[in-house]
């Protein structure tokens, strides 16, 4: 795309060093701090002494283990429900033409711009009334709802790419609507569904606002809100502990992401632009 002139080489090397440092040094700094022995907390040392004691300390903290467990359960359940519900709706929007279809699709898209904090102002008293405050079901429902718009639109775009001729052929062979959907079209959209499954998992895993508001018992906290409570007040100076917890919280999503990067980036960018 560009000619390798001297000017381009200077541009290339300048920014690869500057932005590279900005992007990667903090990552390394987080890991390096989490591996420091306590005595080195306030010293500027970089990967000098490897020491797993703080990682082990955090992993032995029964509250933190609970946050991890709750976070995992909530994220997996949200992800499964969100992907299923989005796939069904996306399929319907893509392969059927019915009255009101366009309007429903439009309002689902527009809802992306509803301020999430404003929704909570209503959701909290509403969920309180039906006794769902401080229950996992409340945040799971919220995560499914908040990931639905992107999920539905992305999967609709996926289904659009699957030619109708495949379905017509199956129809002539006598397959029912349901068989066509579940046996023929859905399997072709697995890459798209994987994208949405990761997207919803990460959403739930990373969320702070809803978990902070809708859950109030320590034992029920998920990862982000639990970490806030662990490291405020007296825990606020435990930098090694904070970095250790951050590394532990980041590892699951980072690993999942590195393996599924190809799916994910292509799926997300396609969905948002075509959407």
């Amino acid at each position, binding site marked *: *795309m560009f000619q390798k002139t001297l000017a*381009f080489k200077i541009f290339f090397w300048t920014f690869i060093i500057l*932005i590279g440092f900005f*992007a990667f040094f903090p990552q390394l700094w987080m890991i390096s701090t989490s591996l420091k022995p306590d005595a080195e907390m306030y010293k500027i040392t970089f990967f000098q002494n490897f020491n797993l004691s703080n990682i082990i300390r955090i992993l032995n903290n029964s509250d933190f283990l609970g946050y991890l467990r709750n976070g995992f359960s909530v994220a997996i359940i949200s992800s499964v429900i969100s992907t299923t519900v989005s796939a069904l709706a996306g399929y319907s929007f893509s392969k059927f033409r019915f009255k009101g279809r366009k309007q429903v699709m439009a309002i689902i898209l527009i809802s992306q711009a509803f301020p999430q904090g404003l929704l909570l102002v209503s959701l909290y008293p509403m969920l309180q009334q039906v006794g769902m405050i401080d229950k996992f079901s409340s945040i799971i429902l919220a995560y499914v*709802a908040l990931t639905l718009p992107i999920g539905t639109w992305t999967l609709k775009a996926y289904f659009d790419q699957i030619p109708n001729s495949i379905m017509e052929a199956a129809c002539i062979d006598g397959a029912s609507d349901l068989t066509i959907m579940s046996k023929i079209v859905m399997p072709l959209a697995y890459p798209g569904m994987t994208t949405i499954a990761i997207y919803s998992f990460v959403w739930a895993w990373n969320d*702070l606002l809803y978990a902070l508001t809708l859950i109030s018992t320590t034992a029920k906290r998920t990862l982000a809100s639990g970490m806030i409570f662990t490291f405020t007040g007296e825990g606020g100076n435990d930098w090694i502990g904070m970095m250790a917890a951050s590394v532990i919280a980041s590892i699951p999503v980072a690993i999942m992401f590195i393996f599924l990067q190809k799916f994910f980036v292509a799926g997300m960018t396609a969905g*948002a*632009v075509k959407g």
Partner: protein
Amino acid sequence: MKTNSKNSTLMAWLLVLPALIIFLLMILYPFVNSIFISFTNKNLIFPKNDFIGFENYVKLLKDPNTIPLIWTTFKFVFFSTLCPFTLGLIWAILMNEKFKGSQFMRGLTLVNWIIPGIAIGFLWNWIFNGDYGILNALFNKLGIIDSNVIWLAGKQTSLIAVVTARTWQMFPWYMAFIMGALQGVPKELCEASRIDGANNIKVFHHVIIPSIKPVLMLILILGAISNLQHFDLINVMTNGGPERATSTFAIEVYKKAFKEYNLGRAAALGVIWAILLGGFSWVYLRNLKEEN
């Protein structure tokens, strides 16, 4: 595929139904209901719930904190969109060169975007820490400052800190979109203008930018929308402080509702916030339409 048969229409609606129910219950109804709440004195602790007309809005107009709140939100959205966009654009151009290890580097950058906001907030608080932070140590060594800056306690510097963390988190997202768009730039056009004597800057300006412009516009708008919604990093790093210097709508509505328990006032503020977001979204939708 099928248009008219009654069975198909029934099935189409059945498939949409689960999504529709969750959507109506958890998003549309709360949204509309919040608009109603903004005209009441509803409170989380006291069982008040009377219609009070525009009182909440009038109080907000008179509140000396409202204009600074809009201004802070504007500054946060502006810089948190433009900074990562610029870095993302440059980084996408570099990563597009397909050198050895570029794939690995691209993946590693995207880790910033995928990890929890809470971890990012903690990390940058540690980096910006006034007494023991690495940034002060580095700046001292380079001679940029001669005494420690208490970044998170200063009115200007706390906003810089939050925007820096947000930039670090989001520039890989812009990069991913821009790299996708760069794949679609017609190579023949680049070659042709080169034969006409264009240098790198001219090719970039006259060929590459025009052909990726739709994507650039889209991510700027999407990025601004997501920054207008952003809560996590500010909440973790400064909680809106010092003295509201980093308090945006997302933070303020949360505090009004769940720290001061004033749902009516929070809702009124939220409605103003929704109107701002609506403006951006309208631009986004219009852009989409033009593209298709």
